[in-house]
């Protein structure tokens, strides 16, 4: 089995609800990480990871200026904030779970980690 790391090593994320849909924004720490996400973190991979929650469709949108991909996950909240019986009816913890997704170790992992001591320089390109 190939060695894996958690997505959290190269990206951070936030999620929330839009009606009965959820969105999950995954933000790379570096341009190299953004390039890796573009190839690896496809709509299909996100859908597979969330399959137990029965999403109807996953759409991915690029936000290159902040090194991010936004995933719109349709009908994943079992009715949404108003009707869902789940504790997490608003999809708030989806991003926390997605950051635990195992990913193959990229060959240039060091170029994808948050810059040491200064996350704030992350978008200096």
């Amino acid at each position, binding site marked *: 089995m190939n060695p894996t790391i958690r997505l959290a090593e190269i990206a951070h994320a936030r999620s929330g609800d839009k009606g009965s849909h959820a*969105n999950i924004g995954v933000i790379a720490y570096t341009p190299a990480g953004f390039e890796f996400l573009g190839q690896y973190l496809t709509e299909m991979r996100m859908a597979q990871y969330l399959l137990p929650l029965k999403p109807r469709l996953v759409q991915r949108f690029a*936000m*290159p*200026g*902040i090194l*991010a991909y*936004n995933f*719109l996950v349709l009908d994943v909240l079992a009715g949404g904030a108003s009707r869902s019986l789940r504790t997490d009816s608003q999809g708030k913890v989806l991003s926390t779970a997605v950051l635990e997704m195992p990913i193959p170790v990229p060959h240039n992992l060091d170029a994808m980690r948050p810059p040491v001591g200064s996350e704030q320089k*992350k978008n200096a390109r």
Partner: protein
Amino acid sequence: MARKTIRIGNGAGFWGDNLDAPVALAEASPLDYLTLEYLAELTLSILAHLKARDPAAGYVSDFALILPRLARVLAVQPQLKIVTNAGGMNPIACARAAARILAAQGLDGISIAAVAGDDLAPHLAAHQAAGEMFANLDTGQALSDLGAPLASANAYLGGGGIATALAQGARVVITGRVADASLTVGPAVYEFGWNWTDHKRLAAATVAGHLIECGAQVSGGMFSGWTDALPLADVGYPIAELTDDGGVVITKPARTGGAVTVPTVAEQLIYEIGDPTHYLTPDLDADFSQVQLSQIGADRVAVTGAAGGPAPPRYKVSAAWRDGFLGAATLVLCGDHAEHKARAAADLIFARLRRAGAMPRRTHVECLGTGDTLPGVWPRTGDAREVVLRIAAHDTACETIERFLREFSPLVGSGPPGVTGYTGPRPKPYPVFAYWPSSIARERVVPEVFVHAARDWLAGAPADHASTGVTP
């Protein structure tokens, strides 16, 4: 009229947010505008429910709770204005309540605006007769197929009514349903005299409004990079600094907790959006896809690259219908086989309900502590020594949910061993308002703006003499 920079702080991100934050924000740093955002997708249905029982209710009560303290800030900061959607289903009643509070503090000359016109319910039949179908934007289902009346239907208005109110001298602007970002766009358009077709600048104000609308979520709250080193007890609520040319800087007051960094702002930029090339508001069709962030100082992030085009031809409508009742309750199971005992306890509850002929239509069991918030996604933890059993249920009949909630406390004495955690008052059923997103042609909706001094609101100033806040 236009100044070089205006500073807009947001002191509330939702109804129920920290009551001390608005005053702390306004006192910590001189603002031109304090915005307070209270309305989530379903808040209006709850407010409609309250207004049906009391015609003087239907606005966000948190605002009335904090206004006495904000009044003292208004008294000593003559530049400060407040813009809030606390009006909910009843901006007029909220304006009168605000007038009462301000007058009691000697501020009876302050000009208060109510921005209404978003409530479509009173004329729904006329809109339908004119060809509006109110089809569900998500499912395509026609309203006529729903078979239930709408509990509320409100158009998302833009910033036009707010700008009109400010131009008429209002210092406190109270709206119903306006788009969250429009609480920032309205003041910017008024202050800078922007044209409503200046999409580049409107987009800049829209992205600023989007970033601050959820309060501390942009300044360190909810941040994935959280550690103990990020102080949040005194988290600073956000400020957007806007310039005439569309410049935007997000910051927070000095000597407060939290952080405003590129990563914290990036997370909020992407929060609850869909296609970033079409962030639709009543003010414009904004494009956030090429937005860039840069750290230009401590807790200062510049936001550039927002673009946009003409507003969509139709207003989005937030509607909801009554869909029965919901209830949820918890028990704690401890010791060996805690999860197994919890699931057995749930089965006991269901068996007793079936025997009584009172099984709710929908139920959902979670053993919290085993990965059940996202079952199948979180890795299973099979050997928890204690789990929280949470069961939620939904039914058309309130009595069925009441009966369901009564089945929890008997488990303490007639269930498996190791049951605890049932000491507080019994949870109550609450009504479900199911979301019905829809749209309506802009020309069918007329924003109404009522501006009066506090003393005139109290003297019963007519609420039938409105200016229109129409955005072209």
